[in-house]
């Protein structure tokens, strides 16, 4: 229960409709996509920066835990309360304030849906590249807080590469401004990066200046079929070494191919056990040459066949099959657990080999797909048989993360740490660095009211 006084203070400036306390409202803000959940005491929907500031002040005064929330699509519990308190949904901050075409940037509020921003800028010949799978529903604020990636990261990078400046409300209610519209800006510390990926633990983002790039003139999609996933993975560094710079390099293992075979609309050679799905974008005149080079590299690495999507409809069909992978995997097994890891790209074959061993050791089916071009692998794990104990899946997940660390990889690539991987953060970060991070958190949020129990 919220202290009566705090509730009263909140209702002094919040619209009654935007202070939600029915059990149904509280339940539906108690979870995200991580399967973690805890029911908050209230859900609030501020409309103005002053509201956010006042809410944080009240929470700070009454020591009420507060969890900022975008669209709740996170996979690691970043937007899930840990111990009651308040969920602050930033949905009402949904304005694209400015698209500055001449200066290649946009000023937006955190509740703007990523795909809406992309559509708006593309309509005037610009491009906002970060494309997390959730982009049709996830928000810019959530993307910044989680440093979201996406399929285009191999060429364009991730969200952090597009954040030029931020407006942030600190846990004590104070508002600060970081960065600017200038590409070169060394005025003071670069604290924008501090908040990017901080998972709402250090401050609440209320505005962002985002970098835009010119919209690519054209795009082409290529698909290469391989007899072995390690062979496919080995082709990836060579593709990048050749300077081709595909927009995306996605890989499918044999289970993913089987699950989406019918959707793809292309004949797949029977011996295929792995597939690379790649996009090249840029000037229309340059694309055929890049596609030809991609084709040649894949063939030289033992690809069984290479197919090129002839038109936009065929391209769309292929990417739909990629996006539908989660759904399609459910046709093989109904219940999967997900991991998100990164390894240096040259270690992808080693990581994939390890999946086989780990799967055998724990009697668990391990399916992998993801962004081969940047070393980010999404791993889906499910019990091989109905009588496999669920602890086997947990142990296999644990082993996957351990192996990633052993290969100089990371236990989280683009899904955040949240509450799910919090106890494993020390696998990647040494004691001194962790202490520094904790001190920083203490400094900004001494009462640990802001998204407590996440990340650290």
């Amino acid at each position, binding site marked *: 229960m919220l202290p009566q006084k705090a509730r009263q203070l909140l209702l002094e400036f919040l619209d009654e409709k935007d202070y*939600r306390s029915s059990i149904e409202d509280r339940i*539906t*803000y108690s979870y*995200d996509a991580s399967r973690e959940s805890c029911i908050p005491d209230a859900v609030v929907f501020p409309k103005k920066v002053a509201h956010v500031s006042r809410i944080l002040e009240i929470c700070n005064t009454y020591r009420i835990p507060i969890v900022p929330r975008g669209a709740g*699509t996170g996979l690691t519990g970043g937007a899930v309360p840990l111990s009651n308190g308040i969920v602050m949904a930033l949905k009402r901050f949904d304005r694209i304030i400015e698209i500055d075409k001449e200066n290649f940037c946009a000023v937006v509020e955190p509740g703007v*849906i990523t795909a809406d921003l992309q559509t708006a800028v593309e309509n005037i010949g610009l491009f906002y590249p970060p494309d997390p799978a*959730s982009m049709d529903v996830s928000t810019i604020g959530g993307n910044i807080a989680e440093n979201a990636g996406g399929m285009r990261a191999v060429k364009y990078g991730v969200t952090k590469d597009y954040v030029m400046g931020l407006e942030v409300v600190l846990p004590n209610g104070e508002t600060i401004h970081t960065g600017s519209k200038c590409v070169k800006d060394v005025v003071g510390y670069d604290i924008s990066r501090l908040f990017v990926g901080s998972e709402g633990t250090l401050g609440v983002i209320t505005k962002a200046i985002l970098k835009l790039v010119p919209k690519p003139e054209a795009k082409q999609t290529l698909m290469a079929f391989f007899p072995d996933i390690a062979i496919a993975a080995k082709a990836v560094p060579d593709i990048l070494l050749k300077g081709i710079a595909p927009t995306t390099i996605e890989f499918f293992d044999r289970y993913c191919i089987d699950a989406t075979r019918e959707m793809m609309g292309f004949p797949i050679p029977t011996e295929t056990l792995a597939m690379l799905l790649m996009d090249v974008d840029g000037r229309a005149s340059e694309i055929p040459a890049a596609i030809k080079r991609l084709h040649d590299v894949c063939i030289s690495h033992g690809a069984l066949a290479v197919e090129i999507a002839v038109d936009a409809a065929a391209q769309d069909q292929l990417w739909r099959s990629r996006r*539908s992978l989660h759904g399609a995997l459910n046709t093989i097994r109904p219940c999967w657990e997900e991991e998100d890891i990164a390894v240096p790209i040259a270690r992808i074959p080693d990581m994939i080999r390890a999946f086989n061993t780990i799967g055998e050791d724990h009697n668990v089916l391990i399916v992998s797909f993801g962004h081969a071009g940047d070393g980010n692998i999404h791993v889906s794990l499910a019990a091989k048989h109905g009588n496999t104990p669920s602890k086997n899946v947990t142990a296999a997940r644990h082993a996957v993360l351990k192996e990633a660390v052993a290969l100089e990889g990371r236990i989280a690539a683009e899904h955040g740490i949240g509450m799910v991987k919090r106890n494993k953060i020390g696998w990647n970060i040494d004691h001194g660095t962790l202490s520094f991070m904790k001190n920083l958190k203490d400094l900004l949020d001494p009462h640990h009211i802001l998204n407590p129990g996440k990340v650290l």
Partner: protein
Amino acid sequence: MAKDSYQADLEEKIASVVAKCWNCNFCFSVCPNYLSTRGFQTQGPSGITQSLLYALRWDRFGREDKQTLQKIVYSCTLCNACVNACKEMSSAVSLLDAIEAGRELMVEKNLGPLPRQGKCLESIFKYGSPYGKLPKNNRDWCREQNVSFLPGEKKEVLLYLGCTVSHDINLRDAVVSLMSVLKTLKVDFGVLKEECCCGDPARFLGDAALFQEIAAKNIDTFKNSGAQTIVPLSPHCYTTFNKYYPNLAKDFAIVHYCEFIQNLITDHPLEWRTGQSIKTTYHDPCYLGKHNGCYDPPRQLLDSIPTVQRVEMRHSRGNSLCCGGGGGRMFDDFEEERRLSHMRIAEAMEIGAEVVVTACPWCYAMLSDAVKEMSLSDKIAVKDIAQVVWDALLDI
């Protein structure tokens, strides 16, 4: 009191569907209810099903504040967008199955539907129509069109008019146009002298018993009609006959009128008027598009007309917005920041359309009302696709 097994089955159904949903929230991006409201989680697909699940877990059915749960469960337009989105982007879960089971459970527990929707069920039970008793001379207008009545006369095609068309005089022109087109195409058709509701409102509001009773009655009527093909006007009747009437689709060809005309025109091209083209946009009725994947036939039909310059709205085909009348919302008022029907007309205006065409009596009624409410009658018109076809035919 011990739960009966029917209720237990419904609870099991809800729990098993929701267990497969991992709350990715991807379905929210396509949910018309969520888009037109203040956007609380309870106003989107998986928020509705989670509310239901917790109501089961905590036995919240029957508490004093049942209205909140009622409003949540009955706010869904049942447009099927979430089902399609989940199949394409996530875990292929049919949340609609849980929502429909939730409505059935609420009716079983005397908690649903909403009061005004309850009156509509009462009316179906008493008069075979959600809109009350029809006057005795309600088929006179058909007689004026020299249309045959079944089962008295033997006809190949049964044109199933549906309750909305029978009651709403504003839809008469659309139906008369359709009858004229069918005559031009030399279709051997007739209508039922007395029709009973297809039962869709009973089904989607959760009254399974009433629905089954009606289905049995209608199946007998159809079998005695002597027709081989049923052509319903409403996509709701069409879906109900095709998917929810046991085995009806084995005994009859069931084709929505839009596809029926398009198929005939493909084989027997019509002669069209020429003249200035009119910027026209097509609004996909949810039960034709998102439920049955019928996106192309109406567009092909419009594209065959020389005076139609077809343009697409921002939301179209699988991404189309509901008119706001689906899922039982025709029969009650729901919280909307912006009315879905107004949003739809605004989208049509945005692309400069002069005419919005649809192929569903409910969409027609909702969108026509929106045009009047928005005082746009001098700028944009709502037409049924049959009216557009009939108006464009060359006088013979």
